[in-house]
């Protein structure tokens, strides 16, 4: 099975060959490296940019004005803060021009903690991104969704931010991508560049991938249950699934685990139906907790489902701290880990109505 980062690469290859992608670019995105996580290795249109995030997004906008279909990368979302006003401009171009100029660009950037990244490689970005009207923001938690959301991002004629969970980049999926060879070693031999001097003349052998779209704004019900609803995405999603399985086995609690997949637009219909059913809600993410996107979801649940709730709705988020420290005691005690999630889900399920 492909890893998440291989899935993104295969989707971008599909985009180059079938969907009109003209440029895949950013820092170290072209040869020889093909991206620090290898998401762009071997791509025909990949090229290296100056180390200049504002130039990257601005140039992507210019390419789009002139009819191109660019995909650009900010190497880590931690480096995107100096470009946030350009993101705002990209999001408003169609509105500001009353339909004069669409802005079909994709910005992809790794997000979140979990790779021992210290202060500047552990940030989350979805709460910031959710405050950029005009954008669509997606965040897969497994390779198949990464493949389908990347293709959707390329096909959508609006600015789409593809947030990729750093901690899950190397995690293999449990389903084959459409067109992926069944043997994962064979896939690696085909599309992963050799390390070292052998790379100079290397070319990928692309499998014949097929189109697969995860519609933007559609969540996935990763687990179905009746006791409570858990909404999450990205790195914390598999931890929620794991906790749901353990609590079902050990305590008999069953959960709707909603993998949101799209931050905006989000799948309100699925969340709404689930909360109506269970009356109990927990939203889990790892972004810092003040003015966190989870708070918006909670606000809507309180506004629209107050009388459906059996217990107080709640969140589990990262601490409001200036950073995540290198020693693991900092990370494990400031962003949600498996035990925190399991405890929060157990308390949600057990609280007397």
């Amino acid at each position, binding site marked *: 099975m492909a890893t998440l980062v291989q899935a993104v690469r295969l989707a971008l290859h599909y985009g180059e060959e079938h969907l009109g992608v*003209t*440029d895949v670019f950013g820092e170290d995105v072209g040869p020889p490296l093909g991206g620090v996580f290898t998401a762009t290795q071997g791509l025909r249109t990949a090229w290296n*940019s*100056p180390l*200049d995030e*504002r*130039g990257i*997004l*601005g*140039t*992507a*906008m*210019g*390419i*789009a*004005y*002139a*009819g*191109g279909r*660019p995909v650009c990368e900010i190497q880590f979302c931690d480096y995107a803060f100096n470009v946030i*006003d*350009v993101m705002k*401009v990209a999001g408003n*171009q*169609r*509105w*500001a*021009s*009353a*339909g*004069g*100029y*669409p802005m*079909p660009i994709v910005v992809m950037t790794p997000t979140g903690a979990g790779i021992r990244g210290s202060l500047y490689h552990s940030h989350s970005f979805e709460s910031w991104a959710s405050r950029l*009207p*005009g954008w*669509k923001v997606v965040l897969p938690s497994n390779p198949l969704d990464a493949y389908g959301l990347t*293709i*959707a991002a390329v*096909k*959508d*004629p*609006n600015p789409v931010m593809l947030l990729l969970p750093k901690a899950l980049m190397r995690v293999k999926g449990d389903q084959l991508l459409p067109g992926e060879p069944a043997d994962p070693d064979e896939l690696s031999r085909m599309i992963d560049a050799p390390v070292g001097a052998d790379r100079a003349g290397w070319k990928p052998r692309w499998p014949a991938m097929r189109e697969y*779209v995860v*519609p*933007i*704004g*559609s969540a996935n019900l990763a687990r179905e249950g009746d006791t409570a609803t858990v909404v999450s995405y990205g790195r914390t999603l598999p931890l929620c699934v794991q906790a749901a399985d353990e609590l079902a086995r050990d305590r008999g609690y069953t959960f709707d685990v909603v993998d949101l997949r*799209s931050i*905006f*637009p*989000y*799948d*309100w*219909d699925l969340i*709404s139906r689930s909360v109506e059913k269970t009356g109990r809600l927990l939203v889990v993410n790892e972004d810092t907790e003040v003015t966190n996107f989870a708070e918006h979801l909670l606000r*809507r649940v309180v506004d629209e489902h107050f009388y459906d709730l059996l217990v107080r709705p709640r969140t589990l988020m990262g601490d409001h701290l200036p950073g995540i420290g290198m020693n693991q005691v900092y990370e494990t005690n400031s962003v949600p880990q498996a035990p925190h999630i399991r405890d929060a889900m157990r308390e949600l399920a057990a609280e007397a109505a």
Partner: protein
Amino acid sequence: MPELNGEDEPDPIGGGPRRRGRTIPPGVAVRSGRETLSAELALTIFRQMVRTRALEERSIKMSKSGEAYFWIGGPGEEATNVCLGLQVHKGQGPAYDYLHLHYRNAGVMLGMGMSMLDHVRQLGMRRTDPHSMGRNFVGHYCIPKWNVVPVTSVIEVQFAMAPGTALVQKRFGGEGITIVVGGEAGTAEGDFDSCLNWTTRPGNELPVLMLVTNNRFGISTDLRTVHVDRPVADRAVPYGIRAETVDGNDPIAVWHGIARGMKHCRELRRPFLLETMVSRMHGHSSSSGAMRDPAEADPLALFERKLLDDGAIDADGVTALKDDAKAEADAAVVEAMAEAQPTPADVRRFTYADSEVDAVYPGDYTGLPGRR
């Protein structure tokens, strides 16, 4: 020399510059130093400068009368802007020039042939405003059919975008170039250096004409108090970009400066940095009163004097041009302000383009997900 741009609408006074009194002898040239313009071209430039000034002065009046909330523009930059607008290769797509402008470029647009009416529609926040449907500040133009991308108030971001359109143009071939315009204060932003850097990647040099209009102020701050006292054009040196500084108040000098820059970009497919020294006759915007600053030289008055001295026009001709321009601006205001305003139903329109892969917004934005 390319065919000059002109108004889209048939000219009510018959195309070329209107002259009363004596006619111009054939072959008369207007001179500045070693450079000359034909009298006919000089009068075309002059007429567009007069129109631009009349439009700006009428716009300031609107901001003071309450018909508009805010004015910002370019009185004092008419020579530079008109000479640019007249020389643009106008059209849609990478075969033609892309324009990444800032908010002092009314003269560029009038030079390209935009009507005064379309300027006033934006200033008056009308639904008919073709640039932004009454959403944006005045002078924040957007005309897709002429490759004029949306003007943004955020200083200098257009310099980060210009390499993108130029990259597509270089691949496309032909002579289309990208023109990006900003003030000297904006060059403090890193986006200015982004443009210098991205247009000079070895083997990937890009045809971008960077035009910096230097009026020596950023809002209220004197350039000399925050920047080294060197020409902005010197910033091109470490990048190996050809650059010039010209007198932006002298239409003859700035016409030729722009022509040299454009020729360089069109033929060599490389960047060029042109700094034009201009006036700021009415301050930064209506927020600082928009009063006439008597210390600022007036390029229109200077050019008028030159044309009169050289016999290219007479006093009656000047008066007629100014009267016509003022009447045109007044008529544009009357027409625009009688047009409809946006409605509440317009607020969300044009947020999103139609998407076949979006489960929530297959069409435009409709409010928060799941709420109708």
